[in-house]
């Protein structure tokens, strides 16, 4: 029997599902190997048990968290798909502002008070804080990046289809960037999080003239304090460094000593 595969989206741009739809060359072949039972963005069918459940997006509300727990209880493997699911991505920045304040800033105070009156829709508005998927349920595999890497997705699916545990090397973006012989971003007078960020993306941003903002998260063994010292020595202010981390890594510990106050 073909394995049942499902995709679920929470708060996200749904770009990771799109990245998969964009694999025109392999998508139809893949569909011969699996039974796609939920993929709301592209199909209208449903199922009750899943061999592999892909979760896209971060979790912001109690009802979303309940839905996630329910999916976990019906799935053999659960995969966090993309940066939002893995570490909250850019929306985790809103955790630095209280939910009530966030609503006030976006919807205005009077509107916020008015819509809150309708009890039926209250859960819709019950934003708690932005959480990564593994803050709520056990995650078997992380497919990092914003967007996720379609190559890594295929590696994972192929491994699971042949009853193997997929392996993703834990090296820094910097390693892949050097391999591509890019001019170092620091030598170009800009700063970069490549030395401490999870690789696997082939340093795609630096290859294309940009810098690494660590959308894949920070490596668990990275010497963050040393990297902060390096950035400070290049004349980058503490505030700018913090702002840098906060783009994609709001949920991470970013070196309190070197940056010298809470993050």
């Amino acid at each position, binding site marked *: 029997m073909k394995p049942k595969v499902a995709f679920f989206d929470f708060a996200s741009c749904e770009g990771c599902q799109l990245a998969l739809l964009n694999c*025109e060359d392999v998508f139809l072949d893949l569909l011969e190997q699996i039974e796609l039972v939920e993929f709301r963005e592209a199909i209208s069918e449903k199922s009750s048990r899943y061999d592999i459940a892909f979760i896209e997006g971060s979790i912001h509300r109690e009802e979303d968290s309940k839905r996630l727990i329910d999916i976990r209880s019906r799935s053999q493997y659960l995969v966090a798909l993309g940066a939002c699911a893995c570490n909250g991505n850019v929306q985790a920045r809103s955790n630095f502002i209280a939910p009530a304040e966030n609503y006030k800033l976006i919807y205005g105070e009077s*509107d916020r008070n008015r819509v809150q009156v309708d009890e039926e829709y209250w859960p819709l508005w019950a934003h708690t804080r932005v959480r990564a998927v593994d803050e709520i349920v056990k995650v078997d595999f992380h497919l990092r990046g914003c967007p996720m890497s379609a190559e890594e997705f295929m590696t994972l699916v192929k491994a699971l289809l042949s009853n193997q545990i997929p392996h993703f090397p834990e090296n820094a973006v910097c390693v892949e960037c050097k391999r591509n012989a890019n001019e170092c971003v620091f030598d170009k007078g800009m700063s970069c999080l490549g030395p401490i960020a999870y690789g696997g993306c082939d340093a795609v941003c630096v290859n294309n003239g940009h810098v690494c903002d660590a959308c894949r998260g920070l490596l668990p063994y990275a010497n963050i304090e040393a990297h902060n010292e390096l950035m400070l020595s290049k004349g980058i202010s503490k505030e700018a460094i913090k702002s840098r981390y906060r783009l994609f890594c709001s949920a991470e510990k970013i070196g309190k000593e070197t940056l010298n106050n809470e993050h």
Partner: protein
Amino acid sequence: MSTSKKNIRIKIDHVTRLEGHGSIRINVEQGKVEKLNLEIVEANRFFENLVKGVPPHDVPQTVSRICGICCVGHQLAAIKAVENALNLTISPQTRLLRVLLNESQFLQSHALHLYFLAIPDYVGVKSILPLASSQPELIKKALKLKKLANDFTAVLGGRTLHPMMPTLVGWRKLPDKNKLHELLERLQESVTDLEQMVDFVAQLKWPDYERQTEYVSLKHADEYALYEGEIYSSDTGKSVPESRYREVTNEFTVAHSTAKWSRWHRESYMVGALARVNNNYEQLYPQAKDVANALDLKVPCYNPYKNNLAQMVEIIHCTHHCIDAMQQLLEKDLQMEDIHYQSSKGIGSSAIEVPRGILFHEYGFDEQGLCNHADAVIPTSQNINNIEQDMKQFVPQMLPDMEKDELASHMEMLLRAYDPCISCSVHMLDVTFV
């Protein structure tokens, strides 16, 4: 049961083949519509707050993440608004590259929506998958077109999703000239494939339903307005500049939607392919007008289901326009430009047409050059009110002739025809039909 005394309850949670989460809830008692809500249940992401404190060049990269399907549109809207805030100007080369990048997203998004998300409704299947065996040639062509559009975005932007090459004032790295030549050839080749795709669309049947509304789009003196222009209303026949977009959107909040709603001269208005074709038909490429004729799309068209046809017309227009623009770009060697800029205090807004309609962004920067104000009004949040108005007229009108299932599927098709992007509109969105 007498048709006038029908009781119908429809609840469609998390409508499928839709970007984002939306639900439809309809309650008919004794033949009377007691409740009809288009619920937008997407979780909030508060993007306008997320960019505060961010330096100007990081703003476009951050707001790109509002939506995967519309990432190019959000980036370009943000780049234009930030440049307006900081009084930065661009070269003709950069404008041309942006025009091409923007239209690459039209080709990609329209092809995805029309062939993969919408058409299954009109041939009576649940997804594209059954079509892969019954219409293999068509699906192959649709996939080929989508791949061309994706490669197009990737060559110009660095990658298909959240491209990193475009930035303030210019390009971080220029597109490869050989790849541009190759794209041009593929675009020229695609013209024949498109003819066959048009033939397929031409034989589909569309629900016979009309409701005149206000059509809002950009308008430009010299071209079919996509990259820039003034904000035009079909109700007044007049335009306002992009900086006055708030007079157009008049955003307000309703309890059953985490996306804000909009209205201008009447209770709701429509943006998107149909609004653009209605407002700017004369500026379409002749080939696109021919296709409009072949599809029997006569302007002004008041049938929202025919937004799908307008998308087909725009695929043709953009293909021919991109071929011309690409040839123009390739006449000279691309020049690497200085992308350093001076940050300053200021506020600026922008308007751009993206596949789903007109998109507004606005940003402000403080003395340190950090973002202290942000606002984004997304096409779908402008359309949602109009979709609900359509449903409110459609349901009572069709009630005598349609049973529950047919009514429900027509509501889903109506919602899908607008090609809503719910992630965008709540920066955050979820639709349920109850």
